[in-house]
């Protein structure tokens, strides 16, 4: 056992990449939950995004168009959920689960004929001399555009929720939809927009898996990432900055675990694998003492009864 074989710069660099899909999906779900909606269909939207992105990228040769298609695909699927829960007032938990089922089936059908195909490579951003800075160059300046998009989105959502009027409305709708409605805000419209945004983010995260992380198409390739993203939102106590932190932590546990094994450290894999979830529960308990808590209207059905 020799821990010096683990290079911290490379470890952090692969962590940046490993955390991107869950970061993107979780940011989307964060907005959805902040609007008071619990969409458990993240896994289904991610895998739909993964295949939409893959198909378009392969056929056009452009990863950029692929990512665009993934956002459209993810949000198109999420609109089914939006119609069910916002228009037909169906239960959100059941609708979300049904969405995952549907998305997994849909993606598998769409993906027939794309097994064993290699997608076009997504280029890394060239930062010139910045990439040569020792340590920081490898950690921060050696990635593709989507990694930075994830970081930028984190900042944008943080600002939006904290400082803008749109953020205030979104939070208001999520905290107390009746009050928001009484103030004249379009609760349903705000929520549909949030759901569509969540779908787009999940789709983007999914495409990052099929186009960059893996990159290939296989049935069920997201392998539970969407569920981790759901946990992450809770872990982050519905705050954008903490989502980023949590994504690094959740991704980091896996990357670190694999690195320790490679270095010859005997570790109980199962215990490490369950640790993020136990930590999340702990965070929930600690948060309950704090004033931060789940959005007040989370998961509740809204109907304007005039």
């Amino acid at each position, binding site marked *: 056992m020799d821990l010096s074989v683990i290079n911290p710069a490379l470890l952090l660099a692969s962590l940046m990449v490993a955390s991107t899909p869950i970061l993107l999906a979780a940011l989307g779900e964060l907005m959805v939950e902040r609007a008071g909606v619990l969409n458990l269909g993240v896994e289904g939207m991610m895998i739909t995004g993964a295949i939409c992105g893959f198909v378009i990228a392969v056929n056009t040769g452009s990863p950029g168009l692929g990512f665009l298609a993934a956002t459209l695909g993810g949000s198109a699927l999420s609109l089914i959920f939006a119609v069910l829960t916002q228009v037909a007032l169906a239960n959100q938990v059941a609708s979300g689960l049904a969405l995952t089922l*549907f998305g*997994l089936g849909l993606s598998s059908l769409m993906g027939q004929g794309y097994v064993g195909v290699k997608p076009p490579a997504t280029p890394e951003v060239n930062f010139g001399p910045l990439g040569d800075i020792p340590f920081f160059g490898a950690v921060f300046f050696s990635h593709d555009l989507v990694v930075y998009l994830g970081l930028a989105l984190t900042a944008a959502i943080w600002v939006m929720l904290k400082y803008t009027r749109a953020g205030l409305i979104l939070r208001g709708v999520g905290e107390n939809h009746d009050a928001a409605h009484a103030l004249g805000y379009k609760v349903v419209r705000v929520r549909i927009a949030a759901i569509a945004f969540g779908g787009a983010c999940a789709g983007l995260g999914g495409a990052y898996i099929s186009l960059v992380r893996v990159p290939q198409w296989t049935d069920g390739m997201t392998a539970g990432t969407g569920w981790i993203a759901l946990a992450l939102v809770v872990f982050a106590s519905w705050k954008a900055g903490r989502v980023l932190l949590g994504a690094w932590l959740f991704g980091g546990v896996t990357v670190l675990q694999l690195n320790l094994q490679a270095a010859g450290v005997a570790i109980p894999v199962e215990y490490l694998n369950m640790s993020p979830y136990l930590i999340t529960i702990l965070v929930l308990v600690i948060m309950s003492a704090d004033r931060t808590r789940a959005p007040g209207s989370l998961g509740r059905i809204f109907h304007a009864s005039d």
Partner: protein
Amino acid sequence: MLTLEKRAQPSRQWSTLSPLLAVVLTMIAGGAMFALLGENPVEAIRTIFWDPLFGEFAFYYRPQLLIKAAPLILIAIGLAIGFRAGIWNIGAEGQYIIGALTGAGVGLAFFPTESAVIFPMMVIAGAVGGWAWAMIPGVLKVRFGTNEILVSLMLVYVAEQVLAKMAFGLLRNPDGSGFPGSRNLQQYPSAHNGELIAGTGMHWGVVAALIAVIFSYIVMTRHLLGYQIRLTGEAPKAARFAGVNPSRITLLVLGISGALAGLAGLFEVSGPSGQVSIDFNVGYGFTAIIVAFLGRLNAVGILLAGLLMALTYIGGEMAQLNLSLPAAAIQMFQGMLLFFLLAVDLFTNYRLRWKRAEAAA
């Protein structure tokens, strides 16, 4: 323009009609999908809905429907009681796993002793395992006010890791040539939950599911406790006025749903499935949530919804086999069925009304 108006009382007519409407809509949409895939839609629909019940091999499929539906119904009954009280346990999958582990663990601990008390002890252990796992979100909610949806969901992932650990470690079959997975309980008569009457599919899990349906029907409609549970869910403040202790209700309903999920796990691992393996859980805990809603959270509805779900699984398998439909198409079809069932439920609680535009604005 069209607006929705809440009914003073849920429409009884619609609550029976809407599932039928949903099935019809699914047949149309699903049939269109099958046609797009180049299949004869009528034949596909017939294979899924008719053949398992009345086809050539119905003698085999009817019992299989019970076997497939039993765990779904058992879990959904427990969940529905919680949902009625406004307690959202979505971690039944985890409770199902833990119940199977504790139950199978007790049985395997006695191997190879034969005794009539072993199976009852396993049943108790399974229920206690599921109960204990559900008590974690319960106690945390009562003590710290944490959200039980999230805690129970997190515990599913933890339970899956525990399952992997057990399948490779403690419960691994010492005679299994180094492969993961426990001994097969089907080959250990004292621990085997076999068919009670051959050829019927009836095993103790099916019996337990039926008892749970009857029991929950009586408790929820005829008993004070059922009233208190419903009141807690519908009007928490009024419930407190009426002297109902919300913490007690929380722990009680989570305990019931956990114990039933644990039982479902135990009956499955000791019967149809036979062994603890890494892939033991196949999502019954999550599907049961859908079943609970399709059944409109009432006992008889859940019984029917569970059977319908089982039918789409088994009919879907037949469609794969006979028509070479991809498994993915069946998954989408099930997804559609759920979408429609969830959507049309709208008409149970609301009615559509024409209103003049200015009134709606």
